């Protein structure tokens, strides 16, 4: 079904007729509505309704409803529309730049989820890069993180402690396969809780689909469709409404959002083993609190070495730290000789970023 668009599309590059004044303060600063770039008179991932919102990615805490106009990547379009519906949305390819006010703006892959981007803002020779959420580990379902040179880098810090160091995703998928195959052999379903946008599709693309049928919760399946529609290859999946036979269910991998845990929806699977896929599963306490049989340490955020390498690769001498381990990262980066500060944003809670595992 074609999506209805506004008749005269809004354009970020033409709305601002007057050249914006040179800001007296930083190019991007914290306001109560969100991170604001005065020279472009636009906000990046704002948390209160604004006129012009530049969106790094479609997770709920970064792409909120209620803004008048949105700017995001082309890859993010379909997933973003699931969440926002028929809004005024302008899309750019990665690397394509537009001029907004007196700022040259472009998106660059952040490797976090499909369509996730770092925002590069250039004004009077000064370059800021806002990372949104990112990871440097490989992910078959989105463009890989691309370092972008900047004077000032704005980084997330969800897993900003050196206890968080991820193993290669291939190792984790091997663990998932092993667990799934053992359950299938024992005739019980394998219920894997994962965030329905991003994590679930990454798992789908990573597991060995020949082990058994894959059943997805409706919330996951909606995103699967958007991923497939955006050109990402995923293995075939079933919905419960497809009425898979009980024989199939006992061998199935079931992907469900964490909110499905403990709900009647799971009853149809009979006896099952359950697991949770998240970076938080690194800690035993978090694993046990989830009360699942297995915890798979798989995150769409950078681990500690990933954060450090991304910051170093930006070449920035100034770093602003957002959501996660803010004070720790600020102190660490300061000790490394960088000028580091905090941005007290309202991000977090959209995916892995939720501190409550």
């Amino acid at each position, binding site marked *: 079904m074609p999506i209805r668009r506004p008749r005269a599309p809004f354009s970020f590059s033409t709305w601002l007729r007057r050249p914006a004044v040179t800001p007296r303060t930083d190019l991007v600063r914290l306001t109560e509505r969100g991170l604001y770039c005065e020279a472009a008179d636009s906000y990046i991932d704002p948390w209160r309704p604004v006129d012009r919102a530049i969106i790094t990615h479609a997770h709920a805490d970064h792409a909120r409803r209620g803004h008048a106009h949105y700017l995001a990547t082309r890859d993010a379009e379909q997933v973003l529309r699931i969440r926002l519906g028929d809004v005024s949305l302008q899309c750019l390819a990665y690397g394509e730049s537009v001029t907004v006010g007196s700022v040259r703006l472009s998106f660059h892959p952040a490797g976090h989820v499909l369509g996730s981007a770092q925002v590069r803002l250039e004004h009077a020779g000064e370059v800021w890069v806002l990372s949104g959420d990112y990871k440097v580990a490989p992910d078959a379902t989105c463009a890989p993180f691309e370092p972008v040179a900047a004077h000032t880098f704005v980084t997330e810090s969800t897993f900003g*402690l*050196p*206890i*968080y*160091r991820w193993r290669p995703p291939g190792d984790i998928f091997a663990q998932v396969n092993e667990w799934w195959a053992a359950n299938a052999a024992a005739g019980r379903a394998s219920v894997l809780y994962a965030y329905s946008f991003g994590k679930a599709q990454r798992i789908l693309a990573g597991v060995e689909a020949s082990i058994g049928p894959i059943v997805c919760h409706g919330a996951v399946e909606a995103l699967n469709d958007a991923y497939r529609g955006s050109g990402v290859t995923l293995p075939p999946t079933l919905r419960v409404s497809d009425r898979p036979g009980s024989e199939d269910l006992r061998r199935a991998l079931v992907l469900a959002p964490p909110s499905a845990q403990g709900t009647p929806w799971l009853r149809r699977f009979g006896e099952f083993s359950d697991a949770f896929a998240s970076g*938080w599963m*690194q*800690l*035993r*306490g*978090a*694993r*046990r*609190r989830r*009360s699942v*049989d*297995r*915890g798979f340490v798989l995150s769409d955020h950078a681990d500690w070495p990933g954060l450090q390498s991304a910051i170093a690769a930006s070449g920035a001498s100034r770093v602003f730290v957002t959501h996660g*381990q803010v004070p*720790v990262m600020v*102190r*660490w980066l300061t*000790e490394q000789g960088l000028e580091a500060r905090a941005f007290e944003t309202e991000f977090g809670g959209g995916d892995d970023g939720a*501190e*409550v*595992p």
Partner: protein
Amino acid sequence: MRRFASLYRELDATTSTLRKLAALREYFSAASDADCAWAVFFLGGEKPRQVIPTRVLRTLAVRTADIPEWLFEECYQAVGDLAETIAHLLPDPGSGSDASLADWVEHRLLPLRSLRDSALDDAVIAAWRELDASGRLVWNKLITGGFRVGVSRLLVTRAVAEVAGVEPTLVAERLLGDWQPTAQAYRALFAAERGDERAGRPYPFFLAHPIDRPVEELGPCEQWQAEWKWDGIRAQLIVRGGRPYVWSRGDEPMTERFPELGALAARLPDGVVLDGELLAWRDGAAAPFALLQQRIGRKKLTPRVLREAPVAFVAYDLLEIEGRDCRADPLHRRRAALEELVERVADPALHVSPVVVATDWNSLAAQRAQARDRGVEGLMLKHQDSAYGAGRVKLEGGGWWKWKIDPYSVDAVLVYAQRGHGRRASLYTDYTFAVWRGEELVPFAKAYSGLTDAEIREVDNFIRAHTREKFGPVRSVTPELVMEIGFEGIARSPRHKSGVAVRFPRILRLRSDKKPRDADTLDTLLRLIGPALPAPFIPERGEPRE
């Protein structure tokens, strides 16, 4: 080591007893006798001695991980467990060690005791280098003396018994006391019972279930024997081969700690086993548990300690007489023999736990209501025909029940929160509660347990959204959340700001229906404080029943 580390991970990851049992069985079926012996030893709760001071280990870890001290501390705050923090922080996990658990314990762990300074450091670092992440965790737990995993000794015993194909109680008895973790000793667990094995070994304690139905449904009241549930140390007093033995329910030998029971045992006939409660005993009456606790805390038993906190044994049951195991006899017959025996011995340190006489359930309930004044925890209900079973087995048609008094409870306001430790390290789970004194909220209790995981997450969200100030790991929150707090006892305490100290506080439920203003006052608490000591109890002979 790899297999043991993965067993540890499995036991640690699941809360299901069946899955734990399966994991243990698998291990005991696959590992060598020597490895199984050490696994039984550690999993059964024998902690290896701490071989390296925590402070030294921290310093070593900080150096090896090459991070600043403060960052280590932040990590520790997030993880809540030193061994695990270190396991995550050490660089480049090795591929894991193929050497066996026994090898690791005997050739790597135990020799650490004789090493000092840099030799000790080097040995620990060398071990870290070889092990993978899960192996490092287990190793760190072992060297810090903090090895603990969520299995009971009973479960380990069961798994061994199932693999060995022998009675769980026999394995339990063989594991009691000074069991040495050698391959031979492990193999010996599999053998058929020998005649001489019995001396000095207690029977498995029979445990009662909390009552799960209205008492009326238990049938006629007169079929049940009711006794007070004493607040002391459950123990068995054994006299065999002319020697006394005292065992606590935790399978801990306590013979040395209670010399007066040795004297008492000398007056008992040979071949006797009594089940009962060890109580502090003053002026012919049971004294509060606190007095017994003081005595347990003492390293040395001076004459003064013995004088100030003497103990008595209040017998519940007779398990063996004249060398005959009488556990299968009906309770009424064991009871009669017990009373006869105690009367004959007539020792001031030996009593029979009196039967609480009641003609119907109503009158029993009325007596139970006075339990707190008597300094007891409630009532035990035992079917007159019941055998003395093993462990926590539910006997169809006549087991044992405990019918505890309801704890004290008040509504209080959440005022401070702190991150949990161990398995709750990333959540705010340790709460401080306050009650009103005029217009002021006075903290009076800290409580950790009682909420479901979902409630914990909800409260954690509330805390993060309502933080007023942070002091290190502690946050003060706006006083909005009311919870019902239960506790077992209350006393005046000049050391606490509120002037009261409560015993075993826990959260009974969230009271989202209440406003902070509805919370209780300090006056309410003070009114709960009774006389300084529970009313004295004079042991009396139980009334024989028809």
